[in-house]
C-alpha cells in the first residue's frame, strides 16, 4: 500500500495535485480544460504509480467516475502489461478515458493498437481562457484513422473523425464534429458531442445501432443488409430530428 504525500498547487489557470512517495514524485492530477489530466512521472516504477493512482481514486471516492479523463505518459516507454494493469485499475473505478498522450512513439503505437485515442502532446496549461465555442473552426481539426474499429474499441476526439474501414457493433466513436466512415458503420456514433447539432455522419453503409448528433439520439430502423453494394448515406439534424438520406456526393 502506498502512502502518498499530496501537494496542492492552485494558480489562476489550473489546480494541480502532486502525489509523491518518499520524496519521489509519482504522478499529478491537473484540472485542465480537456478535463482532469493525470500526468505520470517519467521515471517512477510503474507499479508504484498504479498503486498510487488506485489509492488516489479510492480516496476521491467516485469523484472521477463517469467523467472522461486524459492520461499523459510523458516520455515513459510503456509496456502493454503495464497499460493493462493501469486499465484494470481505472476500469474498476469506473473512470472513462478521453484520450491518452505519450511522447514515446512505441508506446503510442501500442496504446493505439489497444484501441485508444492517442495524441503526441497535450496542450499543457493554457495561458488564456477561451470562453467561445469549444469546437475548432470547420476542417481545422480532424483525426484520420486508417483502420476499422472492432467491438470494445472507442475513439474520442474533439474534432472531426474520418475512418477508413468498418465500425463494428460494440465500437463507439465520440466526435466533437462530423464523423465520416469510409466503410460500414454498425456501431454507435456520437457526432457533434456534446451539443453541436450541425454535425453530420456520413458512411458508405449507414446501419448503426444508435446514432447521436449533438443533443439528439436516434435508433435507426433495422437496416437492410446491403451486402457488397454500397449505399452511402448521410445523417443530419433537420427540425430537431435526426434524418438519414442518401449521400450523393455533396452535403
Amino acid at each position: 500500500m502506498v502512502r502518498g504525500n499530496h501537494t496542492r498547487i492552485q494558480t489562476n489557470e489550473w489546480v494541480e495535485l502532486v502525489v509523491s512517495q518518499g520524496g519521489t514524485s509519482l504522478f499529478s492530477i491537473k484540472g485542465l480544460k480537456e478535463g482532469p489530466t493525470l500526468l505520470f512521472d517519467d521515471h517512477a516504477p510503474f507499479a508504484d504509480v498504479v498503486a498510487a493512482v488506485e489509492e488516489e481514486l479510492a480516496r476521491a471516492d467516485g469523484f472521477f467516475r463517469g467523467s472522461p479523463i486524459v492520461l499523459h505518459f510523458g516520455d515513459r516507454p510503456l509496456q502493454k502489461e503495464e497499460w493493462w494493469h493501469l486499465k484494470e485499475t481505472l476500469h474498476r473505478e469506473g473512470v472513462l478515458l478521453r484520450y491518452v498522450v505519450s511522447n514515446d512513439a512505441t508506446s503510442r503505437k501500442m496504446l493505439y493498437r489497444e484501441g485508444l485515442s492517442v495524441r503526441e502532446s497535450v496542450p499543457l496549461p493554457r495561458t488564456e481562457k477561451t470562453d467561445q465555442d469549444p469546437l475548432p473552426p470547420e476542417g481545422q481539426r480532424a483525426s484520420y484513422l486508417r483502420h476499422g474499429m472492432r467491438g470494445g474499441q472507442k475513439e474520442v476526439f474533439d474534432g472531426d473523425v474520418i475512418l477508413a474501414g468498418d465500425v463494428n457493433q460494440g465500437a463507439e466513436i465520440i466526435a466533437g464534429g462530423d464523423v465520416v466512415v469510409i466503410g460500414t458503420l454498425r456501431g454507435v456514433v456520437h457526432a457533434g458531442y456534446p451539443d453541436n447539432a450541425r454535425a453530420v455522419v456520413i458512411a458508405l453503409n449507414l446501419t448503426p445501432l444508435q446514432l447521436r448528433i449533438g443533443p439528439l439520439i436516434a435508433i435507426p430502423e433495422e437496416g437492410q443488409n446491403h451486402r457488397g453494394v454500397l449505399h452511402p448515406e448521410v445523417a443530419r439534424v433537420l427540425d430537431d430530428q435526426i434524418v438519414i438520406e442518401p449521400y450523393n456526393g455533396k452535403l
Partner: protein
Amino acid sequence: MSGRAIVVTSGKGGVGKTTATANIGLSLASRGQKVVLIDGDIGLRNLDLILGVENRVVYNIVDVVSGRCQPRQALVKDKRISSLFLIPASQIDQKEAINADQMRDLSTQLKEEFDFVLIDCPAGIEQGFRNAVAAADEAIVVTTPDVSPVRDADRVIGLLQGSLGEPQLIINRMSMAMVKRGDMLDQQDVLDILAIRLLGIVPEDEAVVIAGNKGAPVVLNGGSPSGDAYGRIARRILGEDVPIPELNGHSSFAKRLGQFIFGR
C-alpha cells in the same frame, strides 16, 4: 527447431474451441507433425476428456510452471497417435495460478521440441485469455454463425491485433439448412463483419457431440463432414492451398457427381 505456437480462442464460451483444438491437433499429428496441446482453461479441465486421455493425467500445467515437475513429465501421450501430446490444465487451481511470463516461457521451451504448440484458450478476455495469448505467435478465432459469438469474436480480434497481428477464422457449426431458411447468419455475413482470413468452415455435425462424449475426436472417424473439414483446416495450416468447399454453399448432388466423375 522452433515450432509454431497457435492459440485457439473465441471470447464466447461454448463455440467449440476445445473440440477445434483437439481435432486440429490430431489432424496435424496424423500428418506427421509433432504436436503438443496445452489446455489453458485452468480450473475447468476439458481437453483430456475430448481426447479420451483423462485417465493418463498425472501432472498438469500448474505443476510445470510452479516447478513441481519437468514439462516432459506432464506431457500426456495420445493413445492413438504417438506424435500428439497434451499438457492438461489443473482442475483445482485458479486462473491466477499462472502468469503470462510463465506461459510464454513454457511455450518457448515446447517450441524447441514440437512443430506445433496449440493452446486452448479459456472463454472470456481476462487473465486466462491474456496468458494463453502471451504464449502464442499466431491465433485462430473460432465462432459460430450466431450474433453474439460473432460480436465477441470481433472484440477478441481487436484485442489480438494489438499483440499477435491478424488471426485466422474458423466458423463452426454452420448449418446449411438453417442458412437456406434464412434463420442463421451465413458465412459471408460473418466474414463481412469480422473481415479476417477464413481458415475453414466446420458444418454442424452430430458426430462431434458423440465423439466428444466418447473421447474420440471426429477426425479419427473418416467420412464425417466435420472431421473432413478439420482435416482440410490442418492442411491449410501446413500451407497447402485447399479450397473451402463450404464457402460455395453446400456439397450438392451435382458437385458430388462431379467429384465422383473427375475423381476429386
